[in-house]
C-alpha cells in the first residue's frame, strides 16, 4: 500500500462514520441506549466501540500502550451522540496529521506490543492501518442492522459509493 492509498482509505472511513453518525441522529435518546442484542448491547455501545477501537490502535501507532482503565476512561466520556461525534472528530484531526506524514518506509514499520489479553502482538503498520478500517466497517454493518430494527433508514456506506459521492454522482 502507498501513503496515498492509506489516505484514501481513511477518507472513506471518515465519510462512512459521519454517515452513520447522521443516521443515529434520527433516534430518540431512549432508542440510542436501548438494549438490543448484538456484539455490543446498544447503538451507543456499538458507536463507542468503533471510536474507542480507532483510538486505541492510533495510540499504538504513536508508541503508547493504553491500559484497560485508560480505554474505559476514554469510552466513558461518550454518553450521547454529540459527545461521540466530538470525540471522534478530535481523534480524526490528530490521526490525520499522523497519516499525512506517513512515508512508504513508515508503512513497513513493525509495531510490537502486548495486548490487553497478554498476547505479544507484532504487525506491520500498513496491516494495522487496513485492520482498523476493516474493524470499523464491520461494526458499521452492525449499527445499520440495529438502526433498521429501530425503524431508521440509514444511507449506504459502500466503499465505491464514497467515490461516487466525491464525484457528485447521484445515488440510488
Amino acid at each position, binding site marked *: *500500500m502507498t501513503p496515498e*492509498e492509506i489516505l484514501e*482509505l481513511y477518507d472513506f472511513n471518515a465519510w462512512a462514520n459521519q454517515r452513520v453518525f447522521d443516521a443515529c441522529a434520527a433516534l430518540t435518546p431512549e432508542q440510542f441506549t436501548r438494549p438490543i*442484542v*448484538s*456484539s455490543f448491547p446498544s447503538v451507543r455501545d456499538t458507536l463507542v466501540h468503533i471510536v474507542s477501537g480507532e483510538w486505541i490502535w492510533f495510540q499504538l501507532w504513536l508508541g503508547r500502550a493504553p491500559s484497560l482503565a485508560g480505554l474505559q476512561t476514554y469510552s466513558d466520556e461518550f454518553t450521547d451522540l454529540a459527545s461521540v461525534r466530538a470525540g471522534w472528530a478530535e481523534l480524526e484531526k490528530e490521526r490525520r496529521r499522523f497519516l499525512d506524514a506517513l512515508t512508504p518506509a513508515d508503512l513497513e514499520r513493525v509495531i510490537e506490543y502486548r495486548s490487553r489479553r497478554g*498476547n505479544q*502482538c*507484532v*504487525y506491520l503498520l*500498513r*496491516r*494495522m492501518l*487496513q*485492520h482498523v*478500517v*476493516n*474493524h470499523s*466497517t*464491520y*461494526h*458499521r*454493518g*452492525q449499527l*445499520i*442492522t*440495529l438502526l*433498521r*430494527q429501530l425503524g431508521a433508514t440509514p444511507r449506504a*456506506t*459502500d*466503499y*465505491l459509493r464514497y*467515490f*461516487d459521492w466525491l464525484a457528485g*454522482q*447521484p*445515488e*440510488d
Partner: protein
Amino acid sequence: MTPEEFRVLYEYDAWANHRLLDAAKALTQEQFTRDMGSSFPSVRDTLAHIMGGQWIWLERWQGRTPTKLPAVEDFPDLPSLRKRWAEIEADLLTFVRGLTAERIAAVSEYKTLTAGTFQSSLGQMLQHLVNHGTYHRGQVTTLLRQLGAKSASTDLSLFYRERAAAAAR
C-alpha cells in the same frame, strides 16, 4: 496495493466467510431464513448477498455485464449455499492470484444493476468488495447473536496472527 497485498486480503475474506458459515451451522432451518429486519431480511439472505456480491464483481472483472444477482430461493439451506459459494470463492481466488500491478491500476467501466455506468480502477473495486463482505459479516454476527447462536471473531488482526503462527510452525 500490490498483487501480494490483495492476495492476502482475499485469503482473509475467504477465512472470515468460512468462520461465519461454520457459526451459522448452529441455526435451525427456520432460524436460517427468519426475517430479522436487517438490510437483508435473514441470515440466509445476508450471506447470499455477500456471495452474490463476489459473483457479480468477478463477472464484471471478466468483462461481462450481469443483470441480476443469484436468486436467494436457490439456496434453501446452508449446505446448498456453501456448495455454490465454494465454486465462486475458488474462481475469485484464482482471479486474485493472477493479478498484476498493471491490471490493478487499470480503470474500467461497469454497469450496476440499477444506478447506471461507473468507472473505477480494479484496485478500488477489489478494496470495495472486501469492505462490502466485512460490512455484511458484521450484520450476520448481530443476527446470529439475536438468534441465540455464537458468532466467531473475524478480525483482520486475528487472521494476521493466525497466519504468522502457522508460518512459524
